[in-house]
């Protein structure tokens, strides 16, 4: 399934904060909630989060930038994550990553100009016994090969 993101609003952000703020160490759950709603952590959300949690903006910013998951820009309509860790390397993921980059004309971590797909590296999906592995939107994929990869890239037009 392709995720559909909301447009940013301060009210919605406040709702998400209210949902988690009473938990100890609420910042990560809140950031996950914000990103699930908007597809990223929008810049104007940072001061609102800082205010709600009694943190400085710099502290919130520090957390957002520390974790690979949190992004400043929403992804493309589809996200293809290719595992680049050792088990998948042993099973030939390098060639697949090159193929995907060449076919899409973007590097790992980038989004195509038409915002059709974001290509991301990931370091282990725990599918190491069915390597090489990938994740396409919310679908897990094992025993990835060139043919299957091409079929996935075809699906990005949907």
């Amino acid at each position: 399934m392709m995720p559909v993101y909301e447009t940013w609003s301060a009210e919605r952000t406040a709702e998400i904060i209210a949902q988690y703020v009473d938990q100890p160490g609420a910042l990560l759950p809140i950031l996950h909630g914000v990103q699930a709603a908007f597809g990223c952590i929008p810049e104007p959300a940072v001061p609102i989060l800082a205010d709600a949690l009694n943190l400085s903006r710099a502290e919130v910013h520090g957390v957002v930038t520390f974790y690979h998951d949190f992004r400043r820009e929403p992804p493309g309509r589809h996200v293809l994550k290719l595992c680049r860790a050792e088990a998948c390397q042993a099973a030939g993921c390098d060639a697949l990553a090159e193929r995907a980059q060449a076919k899409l004309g973007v590097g790992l971590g980038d989004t195509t100009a038409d915002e059709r797909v974001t290509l991301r590296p990931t370091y282990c999906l725990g599918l190491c016994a069915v390597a090489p592995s990938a994740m396409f939107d919310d679908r897990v994929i094992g025993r990835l090969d060139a043919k299957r990869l091409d079929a996935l890239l075809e699906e990005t037009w949907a």
Partner: protein
Amino acid sequence: MGVSARVFIARDAGALAVGADDVAVALARAASRRGVALDITRTGSRGLYWLEPLLEVVTPAGRVAYGPVAPEDVEALVDAGIFDGGQHPLRLGLTEEIPWLKRQIRLTFARCGVIDPLSLDDYRAHGGYRALERALSLGTEAIIEEVVQSGLRGRGGAGFPTGIKWRTVSQTSGPQKYIVCNADEGDSGTFADRMLIEGDPFVLIEGITIAGIAVGATKGYVYIRSEYPHAVATLAAALAAARREGLLGRGVAGSAHAFDLELRVGAGAYVCGEETSLLDSLEGKRGIVRAKPPLPAHKGLFGCPTVINNVLSLASVPSILGHGAAAYRELGHGRSRGTMPIQLAGNVKYGGLFETAFGITLGELVDRVGGGTASGRPVRAVQVGGPLGAYFPRALFDTPFDYEAFAARDGLIGHGGIVVFDDSVDMAKQARFAMEFCALESCGKCTPCRIGSTRGVETLERIINGDNAEPNIALIEDLCHTMKFGSLCALGGFTPYPVMSALTYFPEDFRARPRRLVAAE
């Protein structure tokens, strides 16, 4: 053919990744067309991943397995009478008799792939919650003593005795104590935590609950990585079920003990698997590694005494208490007692989870159990223990799977993952990747780790391009030495293992490389 049939198909992420859902759908259709009332139970995986999607049919003789099944195979399978265990080229016989499974000693994974992971009735029918019952009758001191006696050591990598850790927390006073379950499982080549959570989540919940009762903690957290959405969903559902049935909450299982457990999802940082970084992350901060002391057992989560254990350590406890410490301790080798769920991954013919007693040799695991490479080419190297583990050549295949034996050869067993590489591997590139990964994931606290890894990448790049191999190799050796002794945690401290082992055992990949003028990669 009977008019009703019962089958099992995994819904573990590893099985889904190779089409288990499509097989289930095709099977349901084929059955309904033939008027067969089909009951499909979705389970965890048995861990025989080269056979996934694996289909198991209930017959009077037991569960009969077929695999690997593609959706296109389903019509022919049904025509062959699989609902009565009929013959077909994909028929593997009784599941329990498949040699790869039969050879194992499944204690921690006894129920994984067997039961419906979210059915408490199933869990109980297979011995679940008996250990908690016994724990409640034993009392806190005796529970800890049993865990100490079992010889169980942490399965997250460091191998610290679990019972001793629990004892420290039990003897430390604090306004609140916590149990934190480390389900960050970041090592490539490992998937046992994921499999267990997706296949038998209640055994983990039971193990954590016992830990809580033993040390006097009333609150626990499971910190699970965001790369595991299926495990997150299964565990969330299992926690809700356990709460509903009074197995978590105010009076656990009718006792006077209160214990509740919460799920927290990581955010894609490998270093957050390190225990103190994980605690900071749980507190809502950047995952920066803390200096020790204080130990988490004294000042852990929110400054309170905290047990932090890996999924497998905690999930082994019900089996230990259920069968007694002596039975567990009897298994194993040297100071490594009990069983280890070993994970065979990468370019391997028979990849999956193999739980067995410590002591089996690396060669036995790779050649006999794993069947060599999937590509059919010779095995050249294996990396044991994740991205911080050493690369071992065939010459070291006599190493027994044992914490001390691996340490004696400058390696580690870590979380039990073995990644197999064939002879097409370029070990200088693997060494460069180890440095790249360290640079990418460093928490930034120590200079040797943060800066050294980046220098390492650059230097290995030069070696790969055939540029001044000898002085650059000397530089790498020097850098590794600095990282090893100047890093606060094992990310910076152990990255030298894969690098130095690659250099030591596969020097030909570093020296005498043709000189390339442009770094075309």
